[in-house]
C-alpha cells in the first residue's frame, strides 16, 4: 500500500475517517493489508471491540479453553466455538447469503417448474402420437391402469437416466457455479461448494419426481384411450378441450394476475420471488388454454399465406393447421419462455422505476449529498454542506439478536418524508424515546410506553422507551440521532438532505446530486443484483424452452418423413422441402412469442397502474425489448435448425432395386449398394 501511494516512514498522510479527513504521520510500513493505528487513535474512531478472537495452540483442548473463557467473560459476553461461530458472521455476509439463498431457491423452483412443463408437453405429444399403439394394447387386454403404469414406467426410466446425468454434471460443475455466485455478488467471499452425497441424492430424487409429475396428465390421457382407437387410420385428436381444463386454465390466469398485484405490494425484498410465482401461475393458465387458443390464432396468423401464389405458403399454412398438436407443442414452450421473460424483466424494471419515482416524490428537499466512492457519509461531510443525515447502526437484544436502527431528528424526518407515524408524534423523538417498526411492535408486543432493553453498538446496555410505531423507517428502531452517535462513533449515513444543491469541499468523500440522480442510484447495487438474478432466471427458462422446442420438432419429424418424401416425389426440390419445414417451425415460434406477449403485457400494465395508484404518480412501463427479441430469436433459430436437421433423411428419395446390365443391384435404405 505504501508503495502504491508513495508513502514512506516519516511523511504525513491525510485519510478519510468516520469523523472526516484526518492527518496521520506514517511511522513505518508492514506487509499486512490496511492501515495500522495506535490503540488510542483507533478507539477514538471505532465503535468499540465487539469480538475477541482466541487463537488456540495446535492440539489444545478447545472445550476446556472455551469454558475457561466463559468463566472469565461471565455475563459480559458469549463464547462461541466451532460451527456456532457462524453467529458472528458480519451482517453484510449474512445478507449476501440470504440473497444467494433467494437466487438459488428461485432458480431451483423455476427449473423444477419448467422441467415439469417440458416433460408434460413432450409426453403429451408422445402419447398423442401413439394413441393407436395404446388402443391396440387396450384391445388385447391391457387395463387402463396397466397403460398408465407403462407411461409412468417410461418416465421413470428416462427420468432416472436423465437425473443421473444431471447429478453427475452438477457434481462436476457445482464448484465453478459457486465461484460464479461469489463473483456476481450472490454469495460472500469465502463461499465454496463442497460436493457431498446427500444433496446429490436429493437432486436425483427431485429429478425423478419432476419426471413423474410431468407425466401425470399424459399418463391419464393414455389410460383413457379406447381400444377402438387402434382401428383408426390416423391419430387425430379432434376431441374438444375438456371443461375441467378450461376452468383450471382460467383459474390459473386469474391467480397469476392476483399474484402480480401481490408482487406489487410485496416491496423490493420479495419482488423477484413473488413476481416469479405470478409469472408461473399466469403461464400455467395460458398453457392449459393453449389447445383451444392455438388453432384459432394459427388460422388468423397464416391467413395471408393462403393468398400468395407460391406453393410454399400454402403448404406451410395447411400443414401447420392440420398438425395442430405439433404446432401447439412447439408454440407452448416458446409461449412459456417469452411470457416469463417479459413478465419477470418487465416487473423488475418497472418496479425499480416506480421505486425511483416514489423516492423523488417523498423527499421534500431539492437536493441531496451522496457518498462519493466511500461506504457512507461522515458527519463532517454532511455538516460541511449544511445537510442533515440519518445514521445507520444496530442494537442487540438480550439474546444477541440484532435489530437495525436509524438515528434521525424530527427535522430530518420532515425533509426525508418517508417515515409515517402510525401512533405517537415524531416530534417526541429524542433521548431514550424511540419509535419501532410495525413488525417489531407486533413481534415483541410493544406499545407506546413499553420498555425495550437493548445493548448499543459499543456494548453499553440501555433501556429505550417506545413513543410510538412508525412505518417507512427502513429499520426496526428509530432513535434520536444523538443517541446513536453517542454509542456508535463509526456510524455513517447513506445520504444527507440539503435545501438546495451546494458544492461539497473536496476530500470529504461526498458529492451533491439532484433528486432524480439520487433516486436512480440509491438502489443501484441492489438493482444490479436483482437484475443479474432476473437474467439468470430468463437464461434458465430459455434454455429449457429451447430443449423442449427442439425435442418436439425432432419427435414430430420422425412421424412425417413419409409425407415429406411424398412431397419430394411430387416434384419439390430439397430446398423447398426444408424451406417448408423451417417456415412451419418458425411460424410456431412466432405464434408462441405472440401469445407470450399477450399473456405478459396485461399483467404488466396492471402492475404499473397498481404502482401508479400507490405512489400517485405516473410510472413508466419498462420492458427490455432487446432481451425479449434475443430470447425469441434463440428459440427461432433452434426450432428451425432442429426441424431441418430432423427432416434431412426425407430428402434422399429411396431408390427401388433396379436393373442394370441384367444384374439386380440391391440397395440399403440409405441408398448404398449391398455387396453381393
Amino acid at each position, binding site marked *: 500500500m505504501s508503495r502504491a501511494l508513495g508513502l514512506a516512514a516519516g511523511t504525513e498522510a491525510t485519510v478519510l475517517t468516520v469523523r472526516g479527513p484526518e492527518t496521520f504521520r506514517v511511522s513505518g510500513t508492514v506487509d499486512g493489508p490496511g492501515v495500522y493505528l495506535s490503540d488510542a487513535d483507533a478507539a477514538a474512531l471505532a465503535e468499540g471491540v465487539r469480538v475477541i478472537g482466541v487463537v488456540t495452540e495446535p492440539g489444545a483442548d478447545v472445550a476446556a479453553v472455551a469454558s475457561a473463557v466463559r468463566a472469565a467473560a461471565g455475563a459480559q459476553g458469549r463464547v462461541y466455538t466451532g460451527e456456532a461461530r457462524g453467529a458472528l458472521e458480519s451482517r453484510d455476509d449474512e445478507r449476501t447469503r440470504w440473497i444467494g439463498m433467494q437466487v438459488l431457491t428461485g432458480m431451483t423452483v423455476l427449473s423444477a417448474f419448467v422441467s415439469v412443463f417440458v416433460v408434460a408437453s413432450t409426453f403429451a405429444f408422445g402419447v398423442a402420437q401413439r394413441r*393407436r*399403439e395404446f388402443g*391396440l*394394447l*387396450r*384391445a*388385447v*387386454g*391391457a*387395463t*387402463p*391402469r*396397466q397403460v398408465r403404469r407403462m407411461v409412468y414406467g417410461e418416465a421413470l426410466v428416462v427420468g432416472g437416466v436423465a437425473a443421473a446425468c444431471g447429478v453427475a454434471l452438477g457434481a462436476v460443475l457445482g464448484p465453478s457455479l459457486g465461484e460464479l455466485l461469489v463473483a456476481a455478488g450472490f454469495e460472500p467471499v469465502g463461499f465454496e461448494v463442497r460436493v457431498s452425497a446427500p444433496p446429490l441424492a436429493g437432486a436425483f430424487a427431485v429429478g425423478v419426481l419432476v419426471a413423474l409429475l410431468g407425466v401425470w396428465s399424459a399418463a391419464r390421457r393414455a389410460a383413457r384411450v379406447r*381400444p*377402438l382407437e*387402434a*382401428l383408426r387410420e390416423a391419430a387425430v385428436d379432434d376431441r374438444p378441450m375438456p371443461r375441467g381444463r378450461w376452468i383450471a386454465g382460467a383459474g390459473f390466469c386469474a391467480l397469476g394476475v392476483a399474484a402480480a398485484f401481490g408482487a406489487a405490494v410485496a416491496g423490493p425484498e420479495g419482488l423477484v420471488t413473488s413476481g416469479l410465482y405470478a409469472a408461473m401461475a399466469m403461464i400455467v393458465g395460458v398453457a392449459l388454454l393453449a389447445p383451444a387458443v392455438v388453432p384459432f390464432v394459427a388460422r388468423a396468423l397464416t391467413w395471408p399465406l393462403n393468398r400468395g401464389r407460391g406453393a410454399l405458403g400454402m403448404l406451410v399454412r395447411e400443414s401447420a393447421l392440420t398438425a395442430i398438436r405439433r404446432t401447439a407443442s412447439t408454440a407452448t414452450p416458446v409461449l412459456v419462455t417469452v411470457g416469463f421473460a417479459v413478465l419477470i424483466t418487465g416487473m423488475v424494471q418497472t418496479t425499480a422505476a416506480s421505486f425511483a419515482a416514489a423516492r423523488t416524490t417523498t423527499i421534500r428537499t431539492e437536493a441531496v449529498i451522496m457518498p462519493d466512492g466511500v461506504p457512507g457519509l461522515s458527519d463532517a461531510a454532511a455538516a460541511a454542506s449544511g445537510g442533515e443525515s440519518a445514521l445507520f447502526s444496530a442494537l442487540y437484544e438480550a439474546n444477541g439478536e440484532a435489530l437495525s436502527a436509524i438515528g434521525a431528528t424530527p427535522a430530518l424526518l420532515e425533509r426525508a418524508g418517508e417515515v409515517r407515524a402510525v401512533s405517537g408524534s415524531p416530534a417526541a423523538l429524542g433521548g431514550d424515546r424511540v419509535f419501532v417498526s410495525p413488525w417489531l411492535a407486533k413481534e415483541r408486543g410493544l406499545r407506546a410506553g413499553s420498555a425495550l432493553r437493548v445493548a448499543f453498538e459499543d456494548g453499553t446496555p440501555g433501556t429505550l422507551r417506545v413513543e410510538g410505531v412508525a412505518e417507512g423507517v427502513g429499520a426496526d428502531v428509530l432513535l434520536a440521532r444523538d443517541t446513536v452517535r453517542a454509542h456508535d462513533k463509526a456510524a455513517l449515513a447513506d445520504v444527507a438532505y440539503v435545501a438546495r444543491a451546494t458544492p461539497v469541499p473536496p476530500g470529504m468523500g461526498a458529492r451533491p446530486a439532484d433528486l432524480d440522480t439520487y433516486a436512480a442510484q440509491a438502489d443501484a447495487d441492489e438493482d444490479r443484483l436483482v437484475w443479474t438474478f432476473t437474467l439468470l432466471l430468463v437464461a434458465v427458462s430459455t434454455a429449457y424452452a429451447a430443449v423442449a422446442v427442439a425435442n418436439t420438432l425432432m419427435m414430430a419429424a420422425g412421424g412425417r418423413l413419409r409425407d415429406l418424401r411424398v412431397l419430394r416425389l411430387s416434384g419439390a426440390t430439397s430446398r423447398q422441402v426444408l424451406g417448408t419445414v423451417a417456415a412451419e417451425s418458425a411460424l410456431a415460434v412466432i405464434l408462441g412469442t405472440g401469445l407470450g406477449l399477450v399473456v405478459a403485457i396485461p399483467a404488466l400494465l396492471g402492475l404499473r397502474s397498481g404502482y401508479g395508484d400507490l405512489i400517485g404518480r405516473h410510472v413508466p412501463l419498462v420492458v427490455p425489448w432487446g432481451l425479449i427479441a434475443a430470447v425469441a430469436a434463440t428459440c427461432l433459430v433452434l426450432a428451425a435448425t432442429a426441424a431441418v436437421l430432423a427432416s434431412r433423411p426425407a430428402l434422399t428419395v429411396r431408390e427401388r432395386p433396379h436393373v442394370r446390365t441384367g444384374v439386380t443391384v440391391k440397395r440399403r435404405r440409405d441408398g448404398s449398394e449391398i455387396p453381393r
Partner: protein
Amino acid sequence: MDVKETVRLWSVRRLYGTADRTVRALDGVTASFHPGTLTAVMGPSGSGKSTLLHCAAGLDRPTEGKVVIDGTDLGELDETGLTLLRRERVGFVFQAFNLVSALTAEQNVALPLKLAGRPIAPAEARAALAEVGLAERAGHRPSGLSGGEQQRVAIARALITRPAVLFADEPTGQLDTKTSRQVLGMLRDLVDNQAQTVIMVTHDPVTASYADRVLFLADGRLVDEFTTGVTAEAVAARMANLEAVASC
C-alpha cells in the same frame, strides 16, 4: 339346439350421435354364435358390420340390448372387467395395425399373457408362431414382415390365451388373393381341428364362402342368413341384391 352358444346378442342397438343427426349403426340385432363354427358377417359398406363385431367383442358398448360371451353379461362389467374378459376369453384380428411396432413377432404374441401377469415359457410363444408357420420369423419386428405374415402373427397372438371366440374384421382386406387363401385356410383349420369359434366380418363373397354360416346386414339390421349352400356365387348374388337396394 342342445349346444350352448359362445356369443349371444339380444336386440343390440348402437347409435352414434353426430352434430347434425343420429346414426343407427346397429338397429336391434339378435343373433347367437355356436362353438366350433365359422360365421361370416356380410353387408354393404356402412351397414354396421364392424359395429356389430365391436359390440359382440366387448370393444364397444351397445346403446341398448345385451351381449353375453361365454356366459358373462358384458353389461355388468366395468372397464377393467371388460378388459380382463377380452384378455382371457376373446381374441381379435383387425384389418391392419394389429401389432405393436416396437415389439418382435414373438413378443407381440406373448403380449396378452404378459399383460395378464402369467408366467410364460419362451417355447409357448414360439409354438404359437410355429402353428401359423412363422417359427423362423420370431425375432422380426412388424416392419420386417409382409402383410400376410403380420396377419398370421396377429392370429397367433389372438389364440395364445385359448379364447372362447376369435373375432376378425376383414382380416384379409389388405392381402393379395394367394395370401388371403392361406390366412382363411388357417382359420378354417382352427375351426375344424380345434373347434375354435370364429366370427369374421367381410364384404368379399369368396372370403365368406369359407364360413359355415353367413349373416347379412343392411342398415344395421339382420336381413338374411345362409346356413347351407354357402358358395361364393350364392353369396355374391345376395350381396348384389342388397347393394342394389342400398343404393336406391
